[in-house]
């Protein structure tokens, strides 16, 4: 009996002795700057950066590593990056490059390489995840291509519906009758912001070019007309992927998937806890 109790006590003690990880650098005393009698060491600089940015830096570095493994850098990405620079130069004028330099970039090219291209590759990574899991993604998010117009009174909505029935093009009818909803063709997903009856109609649509009757949204007192231009997602797969990729929860799912795939592990206890608190899904 005594032996059993001793064994149980020992087990309890051993449980309390599990070691925790530390990510301290090996040369913390290396001097970075000596100001008079004060030496700023590599350790003090590391601790400062580690405390403030450690968790976010690990996630950023990890995503950059994975996206570099999974996604090739393309000419199209550089074209997109250049277009972004052109746009920002238009906004900030000649001060844009100065702004970059003040923020630690050597030039606009450096900014493109360090910020824009990695960001585009992370987006492409999410699209790749959707492509791999396309069947379940399209079941979850039910993408369809639609056009929508809305009006504040039934009379205008019915007039618009009769114009559509007589063959006038959807956007033209929307413009002529001052639709309050943008009527351009767009990719719908279950996350799209429409009244519930409009969403039910779109969800039930199975045919291309299926036109609704007037749908009344009692909550906002609005009258909708919906044209489902493509019900078959395979006819606009790329656009569907691009749209789904913009959804916040999908981006998080994608990162979670790749972090699992790459067996992401954190060995520093403080950073582990920071990541657990900030990105709870990334450490399973």
């Amino acid at each position, binding site marked *: 009996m005594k032996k*059993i109790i001793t064994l149980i006590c020992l087990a309890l003690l051993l*449980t309390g002795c599990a070691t925790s*990880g530390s*990510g301290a650098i090996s040369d913390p005393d290396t001097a970075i700057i*000596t100001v008079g009698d*004060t030496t*700023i060491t590599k350790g003090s600089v590391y601790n*400062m950066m580690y405390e403030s940015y450690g968790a976010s830096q690990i996630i950023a570095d990890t995503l950059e590593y994975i996206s570099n493994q999974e996604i090739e850098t393309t000419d199209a990405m550089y074209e997109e990056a250049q277009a972004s620079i052109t746009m920002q130069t238009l906004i900030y004028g000649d001060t844009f490059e100065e702004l970059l330099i003040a923020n630690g970039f050597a030039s606009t090219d450096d900014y493109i390489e360090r910020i824009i291209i990695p960001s585009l590759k992370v987006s492409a990574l999410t699209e790749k995840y959707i492509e791999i899991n396309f069947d379940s993604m399209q079941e979850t998010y039910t993408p369809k291509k639609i056009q929508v117009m809305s009006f504040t009174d039934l009379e205008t909505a019915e007039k618009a519906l009769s114009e559509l029935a007589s063959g006038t093009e959807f956007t033209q009818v929307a413009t002529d009758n001052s639709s309050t909803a943008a009527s351009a063709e767009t990719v719908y997903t279950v996350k799209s912001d429409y009244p519930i009856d409009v969403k039910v109609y779109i969800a039930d649509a199975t045919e291309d070019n299926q036109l609704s009757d007037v749908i009344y949204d009692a909550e906002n007192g609005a009258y909708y007309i919906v044209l489902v231009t493509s019900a078959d997602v395979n006819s606009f797969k790329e656009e569907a992927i691009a749209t789904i990729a913009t959804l916040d929860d999908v981006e998080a799912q994608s990162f979670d998937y790749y972090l699992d795939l790459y067996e992401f592990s*954190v060995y520093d206890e403080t*950073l582990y806890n920071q990541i657990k608190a900030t990105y709870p899904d990334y450490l399973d």
Partner: protein
Amino acid sequence: MKDIIKKYWFIGLIIVALVAGVAYYAIDSTKDIVQGKTVDGENVVYSLSDNDVTAGQFYDSLYEDMGASAIAQLFQFALVDQLVETTDEMLVEAEAQAEYTIDQFKSSYGATYEDTLLAALKSMGYDSIDDLSTHMVLQLKYNVILEEAATDLFDEFNETYSPRILSHILVAMADPENPTDEELAKWEEVKTALEDGTSFAEVAYTYSDDTGSATSGGYLGYSDTTTSYVTEFLEAGLALEAGEYSEWVKTDYGYHLIYCEATDFDTLLVTDGFLDAVFTAYPTYISELLFIKADELETVYESDELEAQLKALFGVGGDE
């Protein structure tokens, strides 16, 4: 055996319960324990597949994005600390400021205030909440540097920007060219009150139509050539010397009587907006001063590149 089980069944039950309890405790308390890992004597921070990222590599990654700004902050703290001597008054004031800050954090963050405050301090390179008063001393020392610099710059700044502390009384008029009888009557009332010896502040409080300043006796505070007053008002206000009143000044808003409370450095120094105005006018003065002092302290940088990076961050020596 059956007899033993019958005899000791209760003790057996307790043992089984204890073992189950220990097992559960062991699993629960170790599930989030992070096991350390080293490679070639270096701590590993994280890994992806078989790719281990050591603390040294992680330092390089952090350094690339924010190393210079972290060093800049530590560099400034080290300089400021050595440039101004710590006085007993500073220590007392810093302690009071630290207590006030802790109270603010308590009321803002409740039970988690210590974690939040500690995180803020660690992001500035400190280790514990006890360092808050050390940081407050540094702030006070930095204020001394600002005040001394403002003293050095004052003559030139004064000549260019005409700093003043102004107050005014406004008698608002819909069309100042053609005041209504009611507006004229109010204007007369204001003039009479002033002639009767009622103080400027009291008249402003009672009569001024500028509701923003009336409650504080017409006080507008720090003003200089860059303040966005209408031209007629600004010119009249900045032409005044300390203790002088303007004539009634007509603007699109009506008629103003302006009072100049002070133009002297000591009063300006304790007025909100003055130091900001000085260092907006001379944006790199403090940074240049800090680097001059750093040279005097024979500062040694890890590399010329780091020195150049720091100077760029402080906006110093771009043409060198």
